[in-house]
Each structure stands twice: as structure tokens, then as C-alpha cells.
């Protein structure tokens, strides 16, 4: 299935791209699954997305949890804790 993935703020700089369209196996059905898949790329991916790193994820522009499901056509954004205001 196809999903749109975004990397924002410091994460975009660490990963070297603002986002990408990804074709992923339907078995990768959660936020945690997608994170694991991306970490498997190694290098900066493994470091920036490592478990224990303060990371937030939004699915279709709503804050998500590791267990939140990812469906075809979803927009999944990875970003650091927010610092506005």
C-alpha cells in the first residue's frame, strides 16, 4: 500500500529529506511498524528514529500512538516534541 511520510523540523535535517511517498507491505499496519521499517535503513535513520528518542507521530494530521493503524493513502508525519508559543 502507498503512504505519504513526512519528516519535520530537526528530523528533516537529520534524515536529509522532507518526506517521501512509500510503497509498504500491508503487514506494516501501525505507526510502530512503519518506524521499525524506516529504522532498518540504518545510518541516520536508525539513530534519528531509535526507540527512546523523543519523537512524535501524527497520522492524517492527528497526534498518533505507536499502536495507531496506518492505512493506504494515509499521511504519516514524524517530528520532534513541539516548541512553539
Amino acid at each position: 500500500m502507498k503512504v505519504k511520510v513526512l519528516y519535520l523540523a530537526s528530523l528533516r535535517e537529520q534524515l536529509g529529506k522532507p518526506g517521501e511517498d512509500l510503497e509498504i507491505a500491508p503487514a506494516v499496519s501501525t505507526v510502530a511498524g512503519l518506524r521499525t521499517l524506516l529504522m532498518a535503513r540504518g545510518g541516520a535513520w536508525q539513530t534519528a528514529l531509535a526507540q527512546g528518542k523523543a519523537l512524535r507521530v501524527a497520522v492524517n494530521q492527528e497526534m498518533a500512538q505507536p499502536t495507531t493503524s496506518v492505512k493506504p493513502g494515509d499521511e504519516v508525519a514524524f517530528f520532534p516534541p513541539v516548541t512553539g508559543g
Partner: protein
Amino acid sequence: MPVRIQTKDFDAGVEIAALRRDNPKTGAVASFIGVCRDGNGGDANDGTVVTKMTLEHYPGMTEKALEKIVAEAKTRWDVMEVLVVHRVGELKPADQIVLVVVTGAHRGEAFAACEFIMDYLKTRAPFWKKEETPQGARWVEARASDDEAAQRWEPPKSSAA
């Protein structure tokens, strides 16, 4: 729209007047303005001087997140009108960053709703600050104190609060 994201500066007086619209039921107007400081980003007060700041956001989600916070404030407190203006792009020390205005019949509800909106904005709205310093650029780290400030509003206040 109670929520605006913009690069240009805002005039709190103009915004407040537009929000009040001389409504004779309004007895209180609470407002907050967040301003860009020249240092002390993140938890480390290391004395580094910040010369410039860039505010980035997640277009689309930002508006939704802020609207959700405003809606939540309106269910928790008896307030009338709410406005949130947040700037993005390049800012310098002393520049205004964010404006929150809440109108209501009485000050208690307006003050509380205004503070709640800021606390939730700081922890839930997708904005990120990057500071320029003489030592180079750095992303501002989230503060634990902001999480604590937001947590005190949970669970929703009881009627006795």
C-alpha cells in the same frame, strides 16, 4: 476563524477590538502575548545569545490542532470569543510570536481558558523553533516544565475547581 498562522506581526489592540465587537455581554478580556527572547532556549540557561529565530510548523495540522484546543477550552470554561494568532518564519528578539485572546462574562473563566490554551499550544501544536546564535544554529529542545504545565489541566476540571 478563531485561529490564524501568519508571518506578519499583529496588533493586539486591533485584534482585541475586533474580537469584542462592543458586545455589551463581555465583562472580561484576557490576553497573552508570547515574545521572542534573546537567549535561554530549551532547559539549558547557558547564556548563549540568540540573534534570530526561525519558526517552522506543519501546515494543515497546525490549524486543526489549534482549533481543537480552542474547542476544548470552550467546553471547559464559560467563555465567549477566542482568538489565537501564531507567527511563523524569521523572528528577532523582542518580536511578538503568539497572541491568545479570550473574552467572557467574568475574568476567572477568561484567565483560566487563556492559560489553558497557551499550555496546550506549547505541548500539542506542531511548531518548532530554530535559533541562530554566534556559535551556530540549534533547534530548541522541548521543556519538561511545559509538559508539567499542560498536565495540570488533566483530567478536565471538576465543578468544584
